[in-house]
């Protein structure tokens, strides 16, 4: 299962993007059932690009909710174009996803 789900909808010149990433976003302040602190594990950057150009970059800390969601909009894309998103977390893990603009 891809970790990034995107909905990119174009209306006129503007494309509205919503993305949902599956990630624990552990804050480092929560204890597991045995009482031990769960170490922080969160996405640090999430970059959206269109035609290989970044259109929106999120820098996130541990206060972003589990399975994070972000919504933004940008200009200059057309229906059928591909939007790409890549995240990297504080443990060095990463994933990339794409979506067709509808």
């Amino acid at each position, binding site marked *: *299962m891809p970790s990034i*789900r995107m*909905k990119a909808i174009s209306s006129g010149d503007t494309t509205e993007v919503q*993305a*949902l990433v599956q990630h624990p976003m552990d804050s480092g302040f929560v204890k597991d059932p045995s009482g031990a602190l769960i170490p922080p594990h969160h996405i640090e950057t999430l970059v959206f690009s269109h035609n290989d150009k970044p259109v929106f970059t999120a820098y996130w800390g541990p206060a972003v909710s*589990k399975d994070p*969601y972000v*919504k933004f909009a940008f200009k200059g894309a057309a229906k059928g174009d591909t939007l790409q998103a890549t995240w990297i977390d504080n443990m060095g893990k990463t994933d990339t996803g794409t979506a067709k603009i509808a």
Partner: protein
Amino acid sequence: MIVRRLLAVLIAGASLGAAPAPAPNPETDRVAFQSYFFTKFPNVKHEEFGNGPYAVNAPMRKQWEEIMQFPPYEPALDEGREAFEAPFANGRHYSDCFDNGGDGIRQTYPRFDTKTGEIITLDGAINACRVSNGEKPLPLQTGVMASITAFMSESSRGKPFDIKIPADPRALAAYERGKEFFYARKGQLGFACASCHVQGAGERLRGDILAPALGILAAFPIYRSDWGAMGTIDRRFTSCSAQTRAVPLPAQAAAYREVEYFLSYMSNGIPITGPGTRP
């Protein structure tokens, strides 16, 4: 004459002292149950009751609408579809076990099984299907079970609960036991299901708005922010028990299946909204 009159008085007195329980009539119960909630929440459209706290609290509804722009259960829906469509080792499918291939049938569960005399929930039917096809049953509270029921519920969205109580004394007895479970106080806190979800419905308990009992199961399975994950009806029942400081029963315990039967019957006519999201 005098003796007879005396006897009559005595009998009347006895019946006054200990009023016999009225003969069970689920349909009378359902009408009274629903009109209680319709009166308590006069501004809530009847079909909205499947949206739980969001039906009765405007600020919560606004947050919910924002969350529903990209519901956190979507990954589970995809996982559920994949799991539902994957064949068992023997080549058969889940769809072989259900009416209409399992499409749009969520609102007809739980059912009374005339063969075993037991209440069978959708989750139970899914595991029964697996076992009859030589597969191991799924864990009941979360994970793939929640994903499959999410997928099956989605195909029933908008279809009103349609629970049947067949003319079988065992079905009526199961219904009555479910009703007793719903209204009886339990746990060290002495809370019944009804304490929170009838009398307390719409009110705030700690941070939460208590959902009305009417339609409360229509949204399951749910993604709860509190869990940060999906959960089934069993997961909710066991956590409800623990919250009242009662030792939770095992998932799919007869008592849980029966209270699900009762509650779902009470909600006949309220459309399925699941899968749902809750705080």
